[in-house]
């Protein structure tokens, strides 16, 4: 008896200790090596800009020479930092050393996920709306839903790109070497990968400045968090031996100035009018009914206002607004009363009533619903992990993310334009017997957002990393299919047309990539 108990006790103890030790979780990008570009892209100052007219639109004064006492003092500051590194500071250097564009993109996705929560209803069954003028009141501004998130990623990435092109322009112009090149003691202690890239102005500082200003506009309740990240990046970059204080200050100032151009565009790009009013929502339904079609209605209780019905009027980056309506908008879906629609609805029902474990997995992997970083963030995550393996320079990271995220933002605009032009009901509205395997999004069905986002992303990513083109397209097809399998989209009308429209948007990004001077 005692032996049995002893055996049980021993097994349990060993089991508990083993389990207790194995609970640490590592994120996939926690332990990346330092960014070590295969090409520093020294001529990137001549790449085609998005909004700026010239790379020197904002003047950066010439730096002091590296043999003057002021600069020597700045080197001493770096040495002081290097002499007193805590473990935490070393961790931060390693974290940011993997690439500031990558890390800011991860922070961006974090903010998107944090703010991607639909507001809770009022007592009377109406819903409050976030208010940018009073962002801390419930519901906090913004509700970072898929179109908002795609636009946020588009603005941040495009602004980062213009800012780094300007940064590279001045780096080449002034050609001030990095501290680890000037002083061998810093070189000996530098934790940064040593390259020939000039350090004035600091690219990490430019990214910190431009990103912080853009994020303040997009996520105004997060200013303290954003500023803490800027401080963290500054300390890490200087302590790594990659820049001195004047490199940093010049870069951060330049970044913040360039952000002001993008922020000004953002305030007037029609996003503030995308929510609409009750009268406008009603008129969408009335106009659809007048065409003899069943208009979409919210399947939530209480009924929720449609999500950003006028987002299709937002000004895109890769083409103009007329192209959205006249070129990229797909033709109408089958009539809601047609046999074709009935057939497609039955197809949805058959998938949801025979869900396999494998199908469920696909639905959940691509769901990207409330509380997540949305489809645009999902494609950024896929891109980021592949970019890591490509050893891009920081400016090329920014360029590639700008191409991807401008495509995602514009895909959102084109998709939302179609959704509200046709105001087509979800499968569960036409057949309430359809039970969905993921939540039904609160906006019209035609065309599928996931399919549009994914088609656009697969095309531009396949251009950037051609050997992965087939893999990206397969992922996009799966993402599109996941919406059929989940019971929230028709296949032929929503998913397939969404993919085609997305690919068309992606091709605009490819056209830009072919002519921006980076290839």
């Amino acid at each position, binding site marked *: *008896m005692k032996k*049995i*108990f002893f055996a*049980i006790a021993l097994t*349990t103890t060993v*089991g*508990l200790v083993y*389990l*207790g030790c*194995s*609970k640490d*979780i*590592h*994120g*996939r*990008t*926690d332990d990346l090596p330092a960014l070590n570009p295969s090409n520093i892209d020294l001529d990137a100052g001549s790449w085609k800009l998005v909004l700026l007219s010239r790379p020197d639109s904002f003047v950066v004064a010439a730096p002091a020479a590296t043999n003057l006492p002021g600069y020597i003092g700045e080197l001493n500051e770096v040495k002081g930092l290097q002499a007193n590194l805590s473990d935490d500071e070393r961790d931060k250097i390693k974290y940011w050393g993997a690439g500031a564009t990558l890390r800011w993109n*991860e922070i961006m*996705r*974090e903010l998107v*996920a*944090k703010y991607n*929560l*639909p*507001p*809770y209803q009022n007592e009377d069954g109406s819903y409050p709306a976030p208010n940018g003028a009073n962002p801390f009141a*419930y519901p906090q501004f913004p509700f970072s*839903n898929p179109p908002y998130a795609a636009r946020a990623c588009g603005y941040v990435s495009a602004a980062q790109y213009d800012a780094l092109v300007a940064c590279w322009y001045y780096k080449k112009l002034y050609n001030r070497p990095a501290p680890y090149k000037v002083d061998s003691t810093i070189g000996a202690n530098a934790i940064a990968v040593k390259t020939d890239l000039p350090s004035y102005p600091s690219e990490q500082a430019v990214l910190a400045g431009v990103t912080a200003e853009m994020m303040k506009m997009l996520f105004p309740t997060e200013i303290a968090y954003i500023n803490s990240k800027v401080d963290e990046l500054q300390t890490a970059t200087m302590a790594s031996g990659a820049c001195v204080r004047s490199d940093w200050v010049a870069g951060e100032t330049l970044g913040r100035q360039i952000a002001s151009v993008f922020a000004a565009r953002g305030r007037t790009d029609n996003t503030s009018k995308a929510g609409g009013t009750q009268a406008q929502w009603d008129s969408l339904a009335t106009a659809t009914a007048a065409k003899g079609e069943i208009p979409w209605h919210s*399947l*939530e*209780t*209480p009924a929720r206002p449609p*999500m950003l019905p006028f987002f299709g009027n937002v000004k895109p980056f890769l083409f103009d607004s007329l192209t959205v309506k006249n070129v990229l908008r797909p033709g109408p879906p089958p009539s809601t009363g047609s046999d074709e629609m009935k057939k497609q609805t039955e197809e949805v029902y058959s998938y*949801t009533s025979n*869900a396999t*474990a494998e199908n*469920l*997995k696909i639905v*959940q*992997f691509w*769901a990207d*619903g*409330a*509380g*997540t*970083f949305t489809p645009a963030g*999902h494609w950024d*995550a896929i891109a980021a992990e592949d970019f890591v393996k490509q050893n891009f320079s920081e400016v090329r990271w920014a360029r590639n993310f700008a191409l991807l995220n401008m495509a995602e933002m514009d895909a959102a605009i084109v998709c939302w334009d179609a959704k509200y032009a046709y105001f087509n009901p979800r499968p*569960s509205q036409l057949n309430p017997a*359809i*039970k*969905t*395997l*993921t*939540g*039904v*999004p*609160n906006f019209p069905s035609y065309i599928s957002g996931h399919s549009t986002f994914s088609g656009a992303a697969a095309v531009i990513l396949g251009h950037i990393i051609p050997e992965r083109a087939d893999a990206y397209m397969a992922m996009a097809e799966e993402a599109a299919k996941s919406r059929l399998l989940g*019971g929230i989209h028709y296949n032929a009308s929503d998913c397939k047309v969404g993919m085609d429209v997305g690919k068309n948007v992606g091709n605009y990004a490819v056209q830009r990539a072919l002519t921006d001077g980076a290839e």
Partner: protein
Amino acid sequence: MRISERTKQYMIAAVLVIALQTQTANAQTDADAIMMAKNNFCVGPMYGYGSWENYWEGTYKRSALNLGTVSSQMVSVMGDYGITSKLNFLFGAPYVKTKASAGTMAGTDGIQDLSLWLKWMPLEKTIGKKTTYAVYGVGGFSTPLSNYEGDYLPLALGLHSTTFSGRVIADIQHGDFFATASGTYTLRNNITINRDAYYTTSMHYTNEVDMPDMVAAQFRAGYRTNRWIAEALFDYNNTIGGFDIRKNDMPFPSNNMDWTSLGVNIKYNFKKVPGLSLVGGSNYVLHGRNVGQSTMFNGGVFYIFKMSKSAATSHSCKLCSK
């Protein structure tokens, strides 16, 4: 979008499944102070039903109109084998089906977790004619029997975590009345979910979820004879760590899920068919955090098989075999 659906799922998974498992039967379970005699094997089917309309989002109690009433049914096989009269081996394996009465979300169904326990009674002492004290130690292990998804609460079948638990039970029987107190610590393994990133209170770029451990306490008291057991029980469950569901967010497997509940159980041993018993019970969540306010019912039929001739007693309860 589809906020509230998941919230409800959580509750079912946490409260229904866990609660049903630990108090399915009032006879020969891992949580009571009853042992099977040596070489006796008690086994039978259990059915459980639980539902809720309200849940706690953090500490805020609300309804989930897009789910309506969230219900869970469970059919389980439970068994208890007496290795010796002081050492029992118990198991349970449920099939679970969840459903939401409103909204569009489909419920799920499938085989959930296998649970195994070793229950040991190192001490049993009778003082005078009427009073018996006993102490028990229970080691538990549970692991998913199928590849169900722990995400998508509250319609998920369970949390998909492999767990190890340790429990101490103290029991006193005086005449026909008894009282039992127990405390449990449950260590929960990390789980993986069907997505590559998730947000808790910060972003996690992984599909692995750190599951906080749990502590539980239970007090039960009532009437216990060879023929009848009728008892009331109070449960306290506390997740150590985890985070609250944010306003209008979905529930998540690593939420901080706490609850207290009150319940009753009845067991009847048939006179004419020795070894056959009926059990039934009900349970109600009084207060919780990130769980649904469930009401549960369960019932089952058990039969004791004598695995060897040497086990002469038809009744297995050591404490009340007067």
